[in-house]
């Protein structure tokens, strides 16, 4: 995966900026950035896979839904994910569709060095855009 990310300063919460060569990698990179705030994901094994299918009216809404879908799955199943494979499609009505596999394992406090408890990905200043052949995203999480 060629996406890179770094955290950005926010007084109360935590933001990330993600950059990738192609848009699917941008969504994968955003998910990776989020889980890296939650735990040491280098220790997360890929023993289980969850399949996620979503639709949204634009790329920002898709990012909001994708990340919050992962938070919901993580919270209800006690899972951490560290590998993502995203496919995107443009639907005939102009909506966007995402289909993804998220690989990871159940959260293990002793092994995964817990980080932040992320309540949600917010819409505040959320941005998904492309410039000069690079895709970038900006996301602020409520922690």
């Amino acid at each position, binding site marked *: 995966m060629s996406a890179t990310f770094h955290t950005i300063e926010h*007084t109360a919460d935590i933001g990330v900026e993600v950059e990738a060569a192609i848009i699917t990698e941008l969504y994968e990179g955003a998910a990776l950035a989020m889980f890296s705030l939650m735990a040491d994901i280098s220790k997360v094994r890929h023993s289980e896979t969850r399949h996620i299918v979503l639709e949204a009216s634009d790329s920002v809404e898709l990012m909001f839904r994708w990340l919050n879908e992962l938070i919901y799955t993580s919270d209800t199943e006690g899972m951490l994910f560290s590998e993502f494979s995203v496919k995107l499609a443009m639907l005939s009505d102009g909506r966007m569709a995402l289909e993804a596999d998220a690989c990871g394992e159940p959260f293990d*406090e002793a092994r995964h060095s817990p*980080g932040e408890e992320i309540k949600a990905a917010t819409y*505040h200043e959320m941005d998904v855009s492309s410039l000069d052949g690079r895709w970038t995203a900006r996301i602020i999480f*409520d922690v």
Partner: protein
Amino acid sequence: MDGKPTGTEGLRRLSEYEWELPRDFKPGMRVPGRVFADDELMRLAAGDRALEQVANVAFLPGIVGCSLAMPDIHWGYGFPIGGVAAFDEKDGVVSPGGVGFDISCGVRLALTSLARDEVKPRLASLLADMAANIPRGLGGRGRISTPEKTLRSVFKSGAKAVIEMGYGRAEDLERIEGGGIAPGADPSKVSARAYERGHDQLGSLGSGNHFLEVQYVEKVLKPDVAEAFGLSEGQVVVMLHSGSRGVGHQICTDYLDVMDSVRRRLGMDLPDRQLSCAPLGSREASDYLAALACAANYAVGNRQALMHWTRTAFEKHFGASEQSLGMDLLFDVSHNIARMETHVVDGREATLCVHRKGATASFPAGHPSVPAKYRGIGQPVIIPGDMGTHSYVLVGREESMSLSFGSTCHGAGRVMSRSAAKKKIRGEELRARLEKEGILVMAGKPSLLAEEAPEAYKDVSRVVDVCEGAGLSTKVAMLTPMAVLKG
């Protein structure tokens, strides 16, 4: 004006503690903004994006008076933290961005009849016991399993349902905002996903800035009110800060989706998508308010359970029942909430949807929303500070009704980002420093201590001084931490 703090260009100073953002601060504002701050707090507010957020809130339809910010204002998402805004029921809106994901996050304070010196020798084992009793941290599951039927009753009747399960006393309800039950809750407006997230999280503290602290009353600042609240110098009290856990997070996420489609349908031009909203009276607004009340009830029920286990830890250590240890609840208040309230606007009574995002109700003596026990005195306001300095008990004040729709601050307010705090402060060093000062600290991980370090927060004493100076609330007692339990 000469000598204005940097970043306040375009602001008009109205008085020592009041600043106006005129409508031309950002084109599109329907009303001015108003920030309660002194020079120093304004300098801090102007140092991040918080003032722009005050202006953004002023874009929302039907906003009444001003877009307000309390002295602990800082950059949030959607509303600023410390933001207060009221919307007319006829042409106003409700916005999930004005409440946040942790719906009805709040604080409660329980009294004891124990003195600081009685508790001090047993503090370490008491803290260890509270830590064992109280689920917390990332992925922390609650101790109470709530199948769907039970969850529905918690959504509907909040702390009352939790007390009926055996966690607390009936009279606790008289000391919770709204009698422990948020009106208008409709569990059918809560998604299956929120039920799923809620079924095993009742009775869990969470992480981040949530905490449980054993404190003592260091100084009584308003003796008659302190006495009526049952506070005296040297007395040990317990403060806890938690919210609605995954239930609130999911309800906010679900309804942001709903509001975003309303925004598109109505062609609303908003400066921040997190401020998406629906007109009051619409099906979407009514559904959100009904689901919000369920999350508020869950939050208060959660704090009720957490307090119960705190009481049992005290019972074990002091060999007496919590009643004989005087562990009465002083009060429980939410600081992330929207609800319909009656206020006087231009000399006439009006029903408004008041949003408080990191702000606390501060109703005066005689206000019908103040529980009967405190109606002659005013509503208790609980202000958590940081773990190294102080917290405060305040009392609501008449002037707040015309100044801030009966609102005051909610805490110290952050001044340093979490990553900056982690770079600057080492958790273990902080723990040792606090221990030297007589404050025991326990946290799931040292990095959380660094994030929540006293240096990461504004000076809470300055914040409450400005609240008092501006007329929003009156200081009653200053509390000092003895033992701190973090997520």
